[in-house]
């Protein structure tokens, strides 16, 4: 019994260690091309150059792609026997938390068209533009909107827009359209932010939904 227990406990420990071991999960050419990732590669290439390793950002990027893909393939094979156990009992691992920061975060902005004018009714973290913030500011929805801030899950973004339009159609009978945008801003350096405040946003993923079809 003692030895069987030891084997099972060590197998569990081995499984979680292998599953948790860092890997570039989600590595795709598209992910690698993201500006935030490219900025990091550029900085890393410069740091390597200071150390006498002259790769340049393009070669470093290619090297990361090639080594990362091979590593992921080997990892898939190695982890295959442990996956069913981890999935069934809930001991899957993956602790990539705040690995890369979004230096161009985005705020969800919702506007309503009444007549010819657009009126903002919600902005992430705003105290005054707070339409249904009890939903949109809840931690799970923050996680969802955070995906949009990285310009990921466009389909979910459009579907959320349709859902919000349905709500607005009931709550604002005089309005005819609702508009969703992701207000993207580069976070300035501390001194600049303190002196000049936030820069004007770049509007990403701006979509307009008609409210008439929900009435």
């Amino acid at each position, binding site marked *: 019994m003692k030895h069987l227990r030891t084997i099972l*406990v060590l197998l569990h420990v081995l499984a979680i260690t292998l599953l948790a071991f860092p890997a570039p999960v989600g590595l795709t050419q598209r992910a690698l091309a993201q500006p935030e990732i490219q900025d990091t590669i550029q900085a890393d290439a410069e740091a390597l150059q200071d150390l006498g390793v002259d790769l340049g950002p393009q070669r470093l990027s290619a090297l990361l792609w090639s080594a990362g893909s091979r590593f992921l393939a080997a990892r898939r094979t190695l982890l295959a026997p442990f996956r069913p156990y981890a999935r069934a*009992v809930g001991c899957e691992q993956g*602790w990539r938390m705040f690995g890369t920061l979004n230096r161009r975060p985005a705020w969800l902005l919702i506007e309503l068209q009444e007549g010819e004018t657009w009126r903002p009714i919600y902005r992430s973290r705003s105290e005054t533009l707070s339409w249904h913030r009890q939903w949109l500011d809840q931690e799970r929805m923050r996680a969802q909107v955070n995906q949009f801030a990285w310009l990921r899950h466009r389909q979910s973004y459009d579907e959320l827009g349709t859902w919000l339009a349905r709500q607005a159609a009931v709550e604002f009978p005089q309005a005819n359209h609702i508009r969703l945008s992701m207000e993207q801003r580069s976070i300035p350096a501390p001194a600049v932010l303190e002196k000049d405040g936030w820069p004007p946003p770049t509007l990403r993923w701006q979509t307009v939904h008609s409210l008439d079809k929900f009435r």
Partner: protein
Amino acid sequence: MSAAAGPSVWTRVADRLAHREPATALALFRIGVGLSVLYTVVPIRRSGVLPLVWMDRAYGGFRPLDVHHWLIRFVGGPTDASLMVLSGVAVLAGLLLVIGFGGRITALATGQLMLGLFAISPETSGGHDLLLSNALWLLVLSPSTATLSLDARLFGDDHAFFSPRPVAAWPRYVAIFQLVLVYTTTGMQKLGMEWMPWGHWTALYYALLTPSWQRYDTAWVPRLFPLTQVATALTWLWEVGSPLWLLAYWYRATRDRPGRLRALCNRLDLRAALAIFGILMHLGLWALMDLGPFSLVTLSFYACLWHPDEYARLWRRLRGLLRGLLRRP
């Protein structure tokens, strides 16, 4: 192997895993996990965001959801009725874990329930969900209701809420290892230049200004930029250095052996020093950023860092203090 060489590594590991101790630490871990389940589900129900997060479009959600978890399929998919029932059961399950009723069955049922709920919408999920499901599986493996529980009061040998009955200690060791694994691997994956000296340790500065996680207005952050740099560097060093916890436990277990470093680490209680930094970091995260139940579920693991005898000593000391205060005129 000769007798002089002592037992083999395997035998020593097997003996260590066969060790038994009172269940106090595991019980406190269970209570923390139960509270984490409540902290996960109650805000979703209370805020009314449940349909948005976990329901299919046909039942009030904003998108079609294709869920493969057996439990969600069994209840007919993420419908309004099934989700109201499942989330209600999750609240009940969280309460049962806190009061310690149902032993491992409650933990197993809660684990499968939470896995099902988390599988509905991976886009709204986070590291805390993963950590919570890991914690619940550890509770399935642990006799965590042997003390500080209704189970101990109703079904225990001495029918008392507190019970010194020894139970297997290895689930506590695995919980400690899991905690170290989380910190070490998250530190290893902080490869963004914001965590590095050549990125000027700006990670916390950027994180605090990211609207997705802000709990309060963080207009003060630029003024305290140097402080965020220090916190960034310390956090990263502490995370990648968290295997020192394992070294601290090794030194505690072999305190009779010689060595200046061993003696120093034991005298300073390296384990407690690392834990204090972690607790302060999580309290800071909780105060400044809305990361859901992340801090609570992680701190639940901290209950396993201390030996049940240390809890007993602390309890005796607190009781003595309390009595002293009550006796004062």
